[in-house]
């Protein structure tokens, strides 16, 4: 078991900076998720921790030992790849015990460790099969098994569920979560799926263009996003953003409004003067539409209603012609073309400077 400490970690390919100085501490036994859109550098960062990519600048410490120049095998890490990377010509057993074979372990040791890994992952019946006879989920299980037998200090997962179909992904997600609780190992997990990030993580690191946007616990990020990008990235459906203008200050709150929004005071620490243009972020779940057009401060027309079963997503066109989404309880019925007003709790809304 070990903690992982990144200090001003940098990576560039020639003149192109990919990772632009990441500071991060992952505690022993923590489940840390790197999340961000494609090309944000999250996989590169993981591969730098694994030792598959050279580190251009800064320092990387695993278990209080700087490992910048240490070979991957000596870093005490195991990695699970998106493409599984299991060896096609070996049986499941040979794949799982590969690390032990390389280390020239005895037969008895190999058998004991493989049996234990197979028990944890419930794949005893698969051990003598070949990878071509396995489904995607089973293959990923083999890849995880190969990681487990080495008893690494840090597990690295590089988008392990991306190649699986939706229902399998949910099962495997829960299993990985369970695995983390059973093994109590430090795990670093890369994904572009914010649902995986929210459900699995103790700590989420949101990355964009090689820069950390915010680090925090899942609900922390959800309720207190540090900037416009994090606010838009975390949560589904995404947060609504309205262009608003500051009308004045009222104690802790900034009073804002626009063509569709009556003036409302939103608590904020932003240094904004009257006339500044800001973005007002409101999560779809916190909007309450009403057929009474005077009940709320936002005004618009329903353009589409999508019933998902557990919730109903209502698309609206506001009076200033911008679009808005509201996510409501399952039985809310709003017909297309209906004029509505929407109310919301200003303490759950966020103000950001426009980027």
């Amino acid at each position, binding site marked *: 078991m070990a903690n992982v400490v990144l200090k001003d970690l940098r990576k560039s390919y020639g003149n192109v900076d990919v990772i632009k100085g990441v500071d991060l501490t992952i505690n022993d036994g923590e489940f840390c998720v790197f999340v961000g859109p494609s090309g944000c550098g999250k996989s590169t960062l993981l591969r730098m921790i694994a030792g598959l990519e050279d580190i251009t600048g800064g320092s990387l410490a695993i278990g209080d030992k700087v490992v910048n120049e240490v070979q991957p*095998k000596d870093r005490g890490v*195991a990695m699970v*790849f998106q493409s599984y*990377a299991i*060896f096609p*010509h070996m049986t499941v057993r040979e794949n799982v015990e590969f690390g032990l074979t*390389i280390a020239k372990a005895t037969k008895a040791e190999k058998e004991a460790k493989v049996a234990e890994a197979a028990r944890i992952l419930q794949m005893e019946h698969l051990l003598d099969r070949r990878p071509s006879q396995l489904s995607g989920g089973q293959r990923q299980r083999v890849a995880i098994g190969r990681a487990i037998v080495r008893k690494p200090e840090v597990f690295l997962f590089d988008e392990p569920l991306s190649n699986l179909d939706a229902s399998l992904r949910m099962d495997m997600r829960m299993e990985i979560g369970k695995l983390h609780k059973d093994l109590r190992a430090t795990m670093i997990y890369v994904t572009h799926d914010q649902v995986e990030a929210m459900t699995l993580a103790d700590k989420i690191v949101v990355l964009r263009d090689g820069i950390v946007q915010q680090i925090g616990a899942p609900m922390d990020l959800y309720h207190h996003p540090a900037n416009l990008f994090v606010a838009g990235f975390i949560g589904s459906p995404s947060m609504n953003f309205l262009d608003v203008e500051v009308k004045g200050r009222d104690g802790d709150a900034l009073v804002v409004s626009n063509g569709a929004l009556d003036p409302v005071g939103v608590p904020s620490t932003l240094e904004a003067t009257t006339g500044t243009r800001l973005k007002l972020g409101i999560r779809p779940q916190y909007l309450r539409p009403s057929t009474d057009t005077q009940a709320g401060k936002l005004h618009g027309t329903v353009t589409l209603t999508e019933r998902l079963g557990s919730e109903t997503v209502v698309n609206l066109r506001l009076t200033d012609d911008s679009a808005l989404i509201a996510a409501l309880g399952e039985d809310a019925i709003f017909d297309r073309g209906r004029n509505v007003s929407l109310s919301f709790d200003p303490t759950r809304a966020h103000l950001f400077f426009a980027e």
Partner: protein
Amino acid sequence: MASKLTQSNRAGWLFALPGFGLMVVFIILPFFFAISLSFTNQRLISPNPTEWVGLANYRQLLGMGMITLDAVTDESGQIVRDDTGAPTYPRLREYTRNNPDYPHLDGMKQWFSFGRGGEARTFVLARDLVFLTAVKNTVVFVLVVAPVQGGLALVLALLINQKLRGINIYRTIYFMPVVVSIVVVSLLWRFIYDGNNGLLNNILDFLSFGYFEPVNWLGNPKTAFGSIIGMSIWQAVGFHMVIWLSGLQTISPTLYEAAEIEGSSKWQTFRYVTWPGLRNTAILVLIVITMQAFGLFAQIDVMTNGGPLDSTQTIVFQAVERGYGKQDISGGSAISVLLFLIVLSISLFQRWLTRERT
């Protein structure tokens, strides 16, 4: 677009005709010609009518016999020995020339002999010594060239399968001999192997500070075939390197990364990741080399003409030599048919080796 032209069956055949016709005239007809000619006594140019001779050509080519002879003894029962102390044996000619007791050995010559314990010795006789030498040489050529050329090509492929600056220069250099005509290459190597002022002798002389005695590489029966083997390996190694390279590049890079994280050494990575991933490529390379090696001809024709003392005879060279050099087209055809059977059986063996396992 469906027009009358693209839908017409006749138009299709007309378009195929030039290629198809050439294939019929130069590949398919000669193939059947060769088979039927091999059962006749047809000569290239001859006023005599062609006669059906059955398997006589094959009997001539493959006829072999064995005879075990006791050492010659004098009146007292002592074995007569020659100057070196080796026992002497009766002259084989007495058995192979007009001896009514040994009609099946008539016309044969000694190929090789081996002792059988005691002083008796078994002599293996062949009706067509040159052809059997050619078969032996060809088999030796295949057995040496297939593993050595294949292995060397793999080593080169591994070396150039790296991301290095200027790696394309090396790829080009290694591939260059393949695109040069084998006749040109053979001519050049004749200069390299030259006994008087050849490049090889000069280099060896230089490296050994003058201690090396110059060798007439192609003029000495002991070195001639080896020289041809060496030059042949060099010439085509680049081609097989490219095949290996394509095989190497089908192996997923993440497999190497997974092996690296697991702590695999270079050799272990090769053993557990690279080599298993190259299985199909390996079979292909070996089969292609084997097929090409059986067809060994141009080097012989340009460099040695089968000599010295028949030490560089090969099957194809014999087929050509006999069919056109000696105008014995039926004998040459029989050799071609035998070669076809050898290559066919290897090809079938390969199909069996690479069959889909259920």
